[in-house]
């Protein structure tokens, strides 16, 4: 094998990785098909979004690929890579090893709700509920949504996470980008 071929092969995973995440969330959201049957699944979609790669890797580490690739619908509130920078390195390392997997799954569950909640559904519920609407997650908890100016907050006060940009509709759910992790309720 020539050095040139070897170098080309060695760079393949990098190119594939870059190729897999070559769209921004905004581009993905704008280019989604009108027909849900023609869209990718939640996990496949996440793989193609540049700024959500940390969360995508964590969902796989948590063993949630099958659940999020399956027919059951979920709405995900996915922290951006930037949001994960606020988490200390030791915690991230712990969450990403096998010993920390129960903790990782417990954390991710706070970011997952059953069913399909489109942006229209979300805004309509907030308006209809008098400013704050609640959505059950799969952590036996509740996410409270409210408008803060032009933006939508999850939670309240300093700990609130804000929805960033437009959601991405997939074949089996919706992905919202958020600017920080959702802290479990005390």
């Amino acid at each position, binding site marked *: 094998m020539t050095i040139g071929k070897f170098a080309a092969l060695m760079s393949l995973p990098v190119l594939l990785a870059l190729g897999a995440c070559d769209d921004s969330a905004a581009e993905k959201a704008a280019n989604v098909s009108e027909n*849900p049957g023609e869209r990718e699944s939640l996990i496949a979609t996440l793989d193609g979004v540049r700024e959500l790669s940390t969360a995508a890797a964590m969902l796989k580490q*948590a*063993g*949630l690929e*099958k*659940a999020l690739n*399956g*027919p*059951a*619908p*979920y*709405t995900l509130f996915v922290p951006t890579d930037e949001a994960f920078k606020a*988490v*200390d390195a*030791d*915690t991230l390392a712990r969450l990403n090893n096998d*010993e920390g*997997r*129960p*903790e*990782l*799954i*417990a*954390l991710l*569950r706070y970011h*997952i*709700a*059953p*069913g*399909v*909640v489109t942006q229209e*559904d*979300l805004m*309509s*519920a907030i308006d*209809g*509920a008098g400013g704050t*609407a*609640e*959505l*059950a*997650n*799969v*952590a*036996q908890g*509740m996410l409270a949504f409210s408008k803060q100016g032009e933006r939508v907050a999850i939670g309240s006060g300093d*700990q609130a996470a804000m929805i960033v940009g437009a959601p991405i509709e997939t*074949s*089996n759910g919706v992905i919202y980008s958020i600017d920080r*992790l959702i*802290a*479990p309720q005390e």
Partner: protein
Amino acid sequence: MRKIMLIAASLAMLSVAPAAAQNGNGNGKGNGNGNGKGNAGGNAAIGKIDLSPGNSGKRGDQKGKNKPIEKAAKQNAQQIERQIDRARKDIRGNIDDARQVVQGNGNRDRIERNRNGNRIDVVDTARRFVAGDRTAERRLFDLSQDGRLRFRPQRDDDYGLITGCPPGLAAKNNGCLPPGQAKKIARYDRQLSQRRPYYHYLGWSPRYRNDDYAYSDGYAYRTGGSNNLITAFLPLVGGALFQGNSWPQQYAADAVPDYYNSYYGGGADNYRYADNTLFGVNPQSNTITSIAGLLTGNDFTVGQRIPSGYDMYNVPYGYRDQYRDDAQSLYRYSDGYVYQVDPTTRLVQAAIQLLT
């Protein structure tokens, strides 16, 4: 040591039981109720030996006429002590077998082949004592009348907990927890506790907000007593409950209803439920193959108010034309079903399966 002595006592009581039956009481089952209270069953058998007509004269003799009874009791006590001594000598060998059974390493057949029937009783008794009520399977869900999963309240203190010693920690000299393991758990837990606001795992669920809990190696442990020994354990999703591991033998292996299998993806695996999670399990090997679904665990009961957290329309894409909110009904999706809800009273009107 205290635990070993108690085990020995319970073994001795068990071996007395057949003698009690021979004496005519017909009821000497020792501690065969499997509740780990070896002494209670054994004592019951002793009492029946003392008072049975065939052994010591008429029941209800007056004071002064009880000497035969006292003599028989003394002889029985001496006999029991001898049996206890024999059991003590035997227990050290048997406890290793009991450990193997408790740990589920598949050696039980070997034990059965190598020992007589009475010995298997001995091993089983030791298992019940060492591991508490682990022989009883724990069911984690019920079924409603229409076949939907009805979830046990997770906020109950004992939800999912398995009483006794976790695998690998059974029958140590100081209870379930060897000293090294105790230090390890304490250290890990302390490290996690210092990392707020990313609360350690056990702080995330209300049922764990208690100093009695620790976490290590894929299990949550409940500790208690003056020695802080493990009293119960919980296999955690992503830890002991994760692909590649065997389904915990203490959890009932009931597959969830076929509807859930079909809705959440189907395939050759059985789906089983624990901790608001559906797991794919290979029915032949009993090995967990996947996390197939994440559930809310919210109970919707027709005629009752909808649980909180369903302010938003969330029906899956394929059913939006069929089930759209209007003045008469709201529709909300949860855990594989769409629920029809009265918009005024918020009462659930119907549970609708999505695979018809």
